[in-house]
C-alpha cells in the first residue's frame, strides 16, 4: 500500500509532567499523540515500579507522536523545553504512515 515518510517521536517522562508536556505540544500545534502507561523502569535515578503506588510522584508515561518530517524540529523544541530539567528520554525513529493527510 502507499505509505508516506514520517517521524515517530517517543517521549518517556514523569507522569506529573504529562499535562505540561501535552499542553506544550498542543501549543506548538502538535495535536496528535498517544499516551502509553508505563509499569516501571530503571535509569540513572534508580529502579522503580508502579505496583501499589498511590501517589503520582513515582511514575512515568510514554508519549508517542507521529509527525510529518518537517514538523519534527518544532516538536522536539517544544518537548525539550519541558523535559530538559526533568528525567526522561526522547527518541526519534523514521517511519512510514498510511493516510498521510492526517498528520
Amino acid at each position: 500500500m502507499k505509505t508516506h515518510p514520517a517521524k515517530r517521536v517517543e517521549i518517556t517522562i514523569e507522569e506529573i509532567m504529562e499535562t505540561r508536556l501535552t499542553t506544550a505540544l498542543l501549543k506548538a500545534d502538535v495535536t496528535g499523540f498517544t499516551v502509553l502507561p508505563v509499569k516501571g523502569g530503571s535509569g540513572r535515578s534508580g529502579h522503580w515500579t508502579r505496583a501499589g503506588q498511590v501517589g503520582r510522584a513515582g511514575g512515568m508515561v510514554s508519549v508517542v507522536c507521529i509527525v510529518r518530517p518537517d514538523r519534527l524540529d518544532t516538536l522536539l523544541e517544544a518537548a525539550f523545553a519541558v523535559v530538559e530539567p526533568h528525567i526522561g528520554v526522547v527518541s526519534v525513529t523514521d517511519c512510514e504512515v498510511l493516510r498521510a493527510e492526517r498528520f
Partner: protein
Amino acid sequence: MDLIDLAIGNLTSPIILSFALGLFAALARSDLSVPEAVAKGMSIYLLFAIGFKGGVAVNEAGFSATLVGALVAGGVLSAALPFVAYLMLRAMTKLSALDAAAVAAHYGSISIVTFVAGTSVLDSAGLAYDGWMVAVAAVMEAPAILSALWLVARSGAGRSVDGDLWREILLNGSIVLLIGSFVIGWITGTDGLTRIASFIVSPFQGVLCLFLLDMGLVAGRGLRNSRDVLRPGLLAFGILMPLIGAMAGGVAGVALGLGTGSTMLFMVLGASASYIAVPAAMRVALPEANPSIYLTMSLGVTFPFNLTLGLAIYLSVARLITGG
C-alpha cells in the same frame, strides 16, 4: 508501663501487623503486590470516609472558635516545621541545600494514613477526638511546600511557582477529596452518615489493613532500592524530626485547650511526613532534588517509626500534657 503496654497493644493490632507483613514480603523479595489501581481505590475510600466522618462530627458539634484556631495553628505549624527540618538536615547530614529543602517540605506536611492510624489507636483506647481534626490535616498539606520553595528560591536555585504549580499544590487530588467529603459530611450530617455508614464506617478498619499491607510493600521495595541513601545522619533525622514535630503539635493542642484525643492527633500531624502530595510537588518544582532521598525518608523511615512506636509515645505524652 502504660507506654509499653500501649506500644505492645499497638504493635499487635491487625493494621500494624499488616504493615509489617508487607514490609517483610518486600524485603524478602516475594512477588506479592497490590495493583496500583486497587491501592489508589483504597486511598480514595479512606480519604472519602475520614473526610465525611469529620464533616458529620462538625455538623453535630457545631462550628467553634477552637476549630478556627486549630486550622490557623495547623497552617502555621506546617509552614514553620520545614525551617526546623532544614536547619537540622544541614547540621546533621551532608544533603545539599536543595535536597534538604525538599526533605524538609515533607516533614512540615502530613501523612493522612498516619493520622487515620492515630484515630484508630484512639478508638481502641476509648478516647474521643474532634471531627474537624481532619480539616486541620487538610490545611496542613500544602503550606510546607511553599516554605520549602521559599528556602530554595532564597538560595537562587529552583524555579518560580507558576499558576499551574499553584493549582497543582492547592487542588491536588487528596486535598480536594478530603475537604470535599468533609463538606459533604457537614451538609448531610448524621442523616447522610446513616445512609452510608455500612460502607464508610464498618469496613474501614479492614480496608486500612489492606492499605497498610500495600504501604508496607511499597516502603519495603523503596528501602531495598535505596539502602545506600540511608546514612546514619539521615536515619537519626528521620526519627528525631517526628518527635520534634509531635512536640510542636502537642504545644499547639495544649495552647488551644484541645482534649487528649485531639492533642494526640495534632502531635501525629506534626510528626508525620507526607508521601503523596509533597513528593509530586517536589518532582515538578524541584526536579533536581533526589526523589529517592525524600521518599525513603518519609515512607521508609518516618512512616514505620510513627506507626510502630510513635503513636504509642504521642498518646502517652498527650495524656500527660492534657491530664487526660
